[in-house]
């Protein structure tokens, strides 16, 4: 199993540009999550999904959108990138509300 994979690993955006961060898991997990990690702030939940077709906002959803058309994929969309969205983004998945498995992360810089 590849586990949780994320692409790209690094990206630099200009203010106002849009992009999609991809996340795929091959463990048949129902739950998937997007977090952002900022220095000294821990991980903050952006959006999560408990199954295909179902998404919910986390703690910091503003400026982001998600979709969950399949069990495997959970892309995160930034429509109008802002410097405040410079961060490291982690996708995770879990079978239920137990242990979460994390992807390698995407380091995003918005200039």
């Amino acid at each position, binding site marked *: 199993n590849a586990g949780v994979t994320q692409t790209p690993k690094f990206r630099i955006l200009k203010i106002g540009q849009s992009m999609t961060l991809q996340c795929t898991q091959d463990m048949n997990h129902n739950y998937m999550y997007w977090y952002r990690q900022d220095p000294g702030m821990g991980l903050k939940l952006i959006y999560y999904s408990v199954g295909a077709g179902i998404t919910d906002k986390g703690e910091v959803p503003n400026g982001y959108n998600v979709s969950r058309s399949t069990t495997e994929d959970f892309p995160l969309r930034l429509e109008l990138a802002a410097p405040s969205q410079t961060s490291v983004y982690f996708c*995770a998945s879990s079978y239920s509300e137990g242990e979460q498995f994390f992807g390698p992360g995407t380091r995003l810089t918005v200039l």
Partner: protein
Amino acid sequence: AQSVSQHNHHVILSEAASLELGCNYSYGGTVNLFWYVQYPGQHLQLLLKYFSGDPLVKGIKGFEAEFIKSKFSFNLRKPSVQWSDTAEYFCAVNDGELVFGTGTRLLVSP
């Protein structure tokens, strides 16, 4: 909503020293508790978890944690750290939503 406090933001130890990292959460009820580790440049990996049963939990790489319900605590311990334990450690609590602490950066000097 639940909150998680990790009181030590930075810890510096010499190899073979003992480690204890504090973790407190804000309120009780049924919770699942986790410690994750993030080695430099890598993603988060699970060190250990507590769901129920014996409050002393043993994880990978010689780490253990003790759940003390009356203190809302889940402190991480290791009797003798190694240079390879240099990493950032996150405590997390799940009572329906997984909430992370702000992390503790551990530097182990050879």
